């Protein structure tokens, strides 16, 4: 990210140290840290000294005061969570049982959260997870989910991203996916769930699911195979429709995303989910160009070449971003 590079080149040594331990450290960032340390002895000394202090902190392991900070924090966190729960409950004007579900995962997190399994995917990564009961979850790019099989229900918290669920049958153990404000309960089935900050999307491929609303426990929407439900988080509205094809919701598992006559900006928005190097459209005139393409998500570069070939656009690759503008004519 450009911001990180700028901070490395212009900021204090703390930025470099912070990036060094990040899972997202990039080649240009590492090179920038090296270059700055080589050209600036004071900075080099600062960084080495800070890294030494950073290393020394390890020596505090087992220190009663330090362990207490971590433990205290756990307690504080619990208090804060219960306060949030009450406020949310009042805002909804309803049922505390409702908000208890909301905080279900966060509250049980802590030193005793051994029963929770967490899974992540990086940008561009897909991961297939086989759960203890034989259910299989595929987690799409930049996703995060938590599995809790310790209770009478099989619970998944989808924190962000998109996941495809193939649920193993177990009639006496419901399989529920929590999304925050909604939950999806499977009725022996296959379905895809996508969680964006403002938008949830549930597509049922086989069987049926029931979508529950946390603000109203009685409100359950049943969704059959072949249907897609979209939830607008801000308005808390749900609408369901039947798409011509489910490819859009299932194709990504094979690394393919298809677009049929969609505006370029939406296509790019979608491609940006799979690549760390962001693609920007810097020309309003080309934003609404209609696109029909099938993209291999592991080969975004090739897809861009394809787009450049069929649309009147020009693609410029910078070291940190890719820019699309209208073509100036051949």
């Amino acid at each position, binding site marked *: 990210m450009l911001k990180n590079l700028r901070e490395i080149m212009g900021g204090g040594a703390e930025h470099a140290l*912070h990036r060094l331990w990040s899972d997202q450290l990039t080649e240009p960032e*590492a090179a920038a840290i*090296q270059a700055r*340390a080589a050209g600036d002895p004071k900075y080099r000394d600062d960084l080495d000294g800070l890294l030494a202090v*950073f290393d020394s902190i390890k020596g*505090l392991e087992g220190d009663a005061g330090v362990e207490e900070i971590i433990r205290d924090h756990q307690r504080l966190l619990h208090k*804060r*969570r219960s306060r949030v729960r009450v406020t949310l409950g009042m805002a909804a004007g309803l049922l505390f049982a409702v908000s208890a579900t909301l905080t279900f995962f966060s509250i049980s997190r802590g030193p005793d959260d051994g029963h929770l399994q967490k899974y992540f995917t990086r940008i561009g990564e897909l991961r297939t997870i086989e759960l203890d009961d034989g259910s299989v979850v595929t987690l799409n790019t930049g996703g995060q989910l938590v599995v809790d099989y310790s209770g009478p229900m099989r619970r998944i918290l989808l924190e962000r991203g998109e996941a495809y669920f193939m649920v193993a049958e177990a009639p006496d153990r419901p399989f529920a996916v929590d999304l925050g404000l909604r939950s999806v309960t499977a009725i022996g089935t296959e379905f895809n769930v996508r969680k964006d900050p403002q938008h949830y999307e549930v597509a049922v491929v086989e069987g049926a699911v029931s979508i529950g609303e946390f603000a109203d426990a009685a409100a359950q929407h049943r969704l059959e195979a072949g249907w897609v439900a979209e939830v607008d988080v801000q308005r808390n509205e749900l609408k369901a429709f039947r798409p011509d094809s489910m490819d859009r919701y299932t194709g990504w598992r094979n690394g393919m995303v298809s677009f049929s006559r969609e505006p370029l900006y939406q296509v790019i928005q979608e491609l940006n989910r799979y690549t760390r190097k962001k693609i920007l459209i810097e020309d309003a005139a080309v934003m609404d160009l209609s696109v029909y393409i099938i993209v291999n998500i592991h080969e975004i570069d090739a897809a861009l070449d394809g787009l450049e070939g069929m649309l009147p656009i020009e693609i410029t690759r910078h070291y940190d971003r890719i820019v699309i503008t209208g073509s100036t004519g051949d």
Partner: protein
Amino acid sequence: MNPRNDNIIDLASAQRSSRKRVVQTLFERHAEALRLFLRGRSVAPEEIDDLLQELFTRLMDAHRLEEKMADSTGSSRSYLLTMANGLMVDRWRKEQVRNAHADAVRNVEQGHTDELSPERIVAAQMELEAIKAVILDMPLNWRVALLLQRMRNMSYEDIALHMGVQVKQVDNYLVRALRRLRKARRRIEAAGEQSC
């Protein structure tokens, strides 16, 4: 030979070979991360092999390594980077001491300053106390983020999950905590030197 002794030897070598597998896996899994990290740490290409060999030896001798790897709260990547950093910090410290005492140790047998003299242990202890004081003085969120990273080897994502905030927020806490440490560094070092 006493058969019982043979058993003991077998067990030890079995443990050793299983440890070797753990360390090898660790190296393989994080080869790319380690390479990038060393690059950012300005390690010269000709030194890398040497350093990795030393890191390997350290990990083979590391206390409770398997236990730490099995701990799901920590990230093995973060642990590995911390070990690699520790190695480089040791080298850097020795060099610092050598430079600082270049004149004083001219007559002293070489390598003397590398040893853990009682004075050096006391100095390290004083330094640690000074670091602790700086950390205790930080705003709550900064120090919690810092300690979870250091004491639990947590990745930034896990810290965010644990603290119930966005990863961006964790970045923010950590950078601020580190800045505070950078600014306090002279004071921390002075605390160590005073006792010498």
